[in-house]
């Protein structure tokens, strides 16, 4: 069995974000954040950030609660993952043709983790023949991954382990999950409620993190944390207030872990572990080291 099959999940391929005001959300995504708007079908607006056909969709809170897309290796892996998740007691069902079309994928199973976060397992997400061409020079390279809120850490971790994810490091009970060579593509943050915490987009370098930081300050877009640097993953970040209560993040420089087996390291839940530069989030409890949350 190849190592790729050892991890059923091969990429985090999209985020479908439910927002109250679709138009305002779409303006933020393209004009402010720098994604490329590519289309709209059935009230769902699609955006690109890289070679994929779309990585972000905005859906209306009236019809949907949103989901994240996890690409699995192939159809056989998809069936196996679905069977194992179902067997472990996670709600999961096969997506119909219409649901697959909305997700720009060939086949999918729609699952929920123990917190109730909607996670789509998909195969063959659509690529685009044309390169990504944004309306603003934010320096976005790719959609990188997500942070998820969890109200059932152990069970949610079990969900991701079935998909082949491994814990790369811990900060308190925050779990960074590795599915490929990057330190993490998914991070599980213990929280008071479930839901998507942030969507992270890799930019070219520190220059773009800082340029975007000043760009947002000038436009009075709320910076929730950063510029900062995660101690465990070495990733530089800038977390922004997106539409509704969403968080959009620019990131760069995450550690690439080699093939060599390594044990997850435990960092204390402290502001220093969350940002070694010294940035602190005043607004997002998950980004803060608050007493009693450990």
């Amino acid at each position, binding site marked *: 069995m190849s190592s790729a099959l050892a991890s059923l999940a091969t990429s985090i391929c999209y985020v479908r974000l439910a927002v109250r005001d679709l138009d305002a959300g779409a303006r933020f995504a393209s004009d402010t954040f720098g994604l490329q708007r590519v289309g709209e079908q059935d009230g769902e607006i699609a955006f690109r950030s890289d070679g994929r056909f779309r990585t972000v969709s905005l859906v209306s809170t009236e019809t949907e609660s949103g989901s994240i897309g996890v690409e699995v290796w192939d159809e056989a892996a998809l069936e196996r993952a679905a069977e194992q998740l179902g067997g472990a007691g996670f709600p999961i069902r096969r997506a119909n043709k219409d649901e697959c079309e909305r997700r720009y994928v060939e086949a999918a199973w729609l699952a929920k983790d123990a917190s109730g976060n909607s996670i789509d397992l998909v195969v063959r997400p659509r690529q685009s023949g044309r390169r990504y061409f944004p309306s603003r020079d934010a320096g976005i390279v790719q959609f990188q991954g997500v942070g998820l809120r969890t109200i059932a850490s152990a069970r949610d971790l079990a969900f991701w382990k079935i998909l082949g994810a491994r814990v790369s490091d811990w900060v308190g009970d925050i779990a960074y999950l590795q599915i490929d060579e990057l330190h993490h593509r998914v991070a599980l943050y213990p929280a008071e409620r479930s839901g998507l915490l942030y969507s992270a987009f890799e930019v070219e370098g*520190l*220059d773009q993190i800082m340029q975007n*930081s*000043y760009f947002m300050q000038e436009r009075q877009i709320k910076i929730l944390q950063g510029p900062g640097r995660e101690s465990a993953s070495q990733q530089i970040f800038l977390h922004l207030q997106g539409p509704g209560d969403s968080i959009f993040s620019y990131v760069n420089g995450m550690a690439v872990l080699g093939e060599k087996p390594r044990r997850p390291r435990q960092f204390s839940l402290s502001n220093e572990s969350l940002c070694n530069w*010294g940035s602190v989030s005043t607004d997002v409890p998950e980004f803060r080291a608050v007493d009693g949350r450990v």
Partner: protein
Amino acid sequence: MIQLKDVSYVRLGSPDLESAEMFATSCLGLEIAERGKKTLYLRSDDRAHTLCYSEGDPRQQTVGFEIEDEDDLQTAAATLEALGHQVHAGTVEEAEQRKVKAFIGFRDPTGNHIELVVRPERRGRRYFATRDAGITGFSHIGLNSTDPVRDERFWTQVCNARVSDRIGDIPLMRVNAIHHTIALVRAPAAGIQHINHQVESNDDVLRSYYFLNEKRVPIVFGPGRHPTSGARFLYFKGPDDMIFEYSVGVDEIEDEATHRPRQFGFEPPSLCMWGARPSGMALPDSNA
């Protein structure tokens, strides 16, 4: 031509040495080399000192440049006198105070007090910081100029400085491979506009940004990045309103023979390509 090798030290007067020491150690991160009754010597690299405070008027500001040897010192004195600069030959006692073998003092055309020194002392023991700011050494100064075009002529024709880049009429000048050692700043009177220390990494610049903010040290420009030298920077205000800079990643001019100064327009992106705006600090070209 006077061959400057490197910038050597800055001497500053201050009415309150205690505050100066507090800032230098707990904020800036220098090492105390020696503490006299009315003097404070500070280290930032393997030199015996690169910054010296002495009790007095904060308008007393001096920059020292290293030159090759005592013969060159004599020649330099003659050159400067021939041009009408009054030259002060340092006494043995004054040289000891500066931890150099010999020196002369004079004023540049704007009136900045400059010293040329021979054999500034180094220390066998490495620099050991009082706080982990990541400082690797004292690197350059911003120097006030009442007439940048005239002063550029002085530094490049009487001395050996070369222009690396210009922002408007303001030259950034090097005396060795490092992009600039002297940055002229248009100002109404003589003085040191800023004192630069290099740090190890981007991380140090950003860490210091949050650290100094917490210490309520006024950040006057940055974090940012100069498109001229490529350096990531942070400017902040110390005692007696002196501005200090941390930076990292200053370019080196690789080919001395073929380098042509680039011309940047006098506009904010020429000073910071990230979008930072100076506040509480004079711009190089402003007639403040």
